[in-house]
């Protein structure tokens, strides 16, 4: 899967499960996307994460996490750090900004 398709497919989905393994430097999230009554599931792993920022000005907690939009800000070829630069919007209210060496979806590398 290419990065543009990944961002398009995941935007509007819900993050069902997510883990950040500091030892492995891997952020993993399972995203379910319901569109026209068809449910698709994606297991996404951001590999060798070098930067992870959670930007949130809201008070309170969320039980559900909508991946409102995903942006691929830069590919490794276009990035100064030669990494993927990614932003995840949660409910249009908070953002996760990360950089990583590789992205995989269901075990396959994103191009």
């Amino acid at each position: 899967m290419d990065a543009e398709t990944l961002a398009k497919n995941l935007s509007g989905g819900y993050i069902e499960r997510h883990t950040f393994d500091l030892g492995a430097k891997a952020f993993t999230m399972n995203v379910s996307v319901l569109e026209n009554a068809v449910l698709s599931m994606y297991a996404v792993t951001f590999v060798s994460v070098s930067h992870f920022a959670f930007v949130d000005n809201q008070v309170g907690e969320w039980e559900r996490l909508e991946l409102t939009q995903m942006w691929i800000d830069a590919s490794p070829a276009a990035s100064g750090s030669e990494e993927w630069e990614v932003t995840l919007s949660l409910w249009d209210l908070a953002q996760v900004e990360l950089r990583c060496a590789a992205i995989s979806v269901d075990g396959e590398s994103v191009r």
Partner: protein
Amino acid sequence: MLAVASLPTLGAGDAALSPEVVGLGKVLQSGAGSGLLTSAGVATRVAEATGGTVGQLAKSEGYKVTVMEGKQAIVARIKASGDIRVTIADKGGLTASGEISSDKALTHFADLSSDQITALVNRARQLVQSMRH
């Protein structure tokens, strides 16, 4: 495209401009595209009608209107492209008939007027209020 509607007139000597109108004036001065101008006008009108606050979208061209109903945030996202969503944070998006849904095909709209978006935000408020009881 979003429905075209009149924009507020900016007077140089008007000292009582709201932050939303000042923001719109900056968009006007920037010479940005008509979609962005229209989304700014729609967002301003929705905010005025609902008591919400206008903010720019983080990475996309357009604006969002955030309305607090108690501790629950309701967000109307109004992109310059015309893509519009109204969501209740932690719950889901609203369909055209005003129901909460996780189906993104049912919760993304195009070409809604400010009145239609305001109606969806008010419906979201009703839903949040009913959840409390």
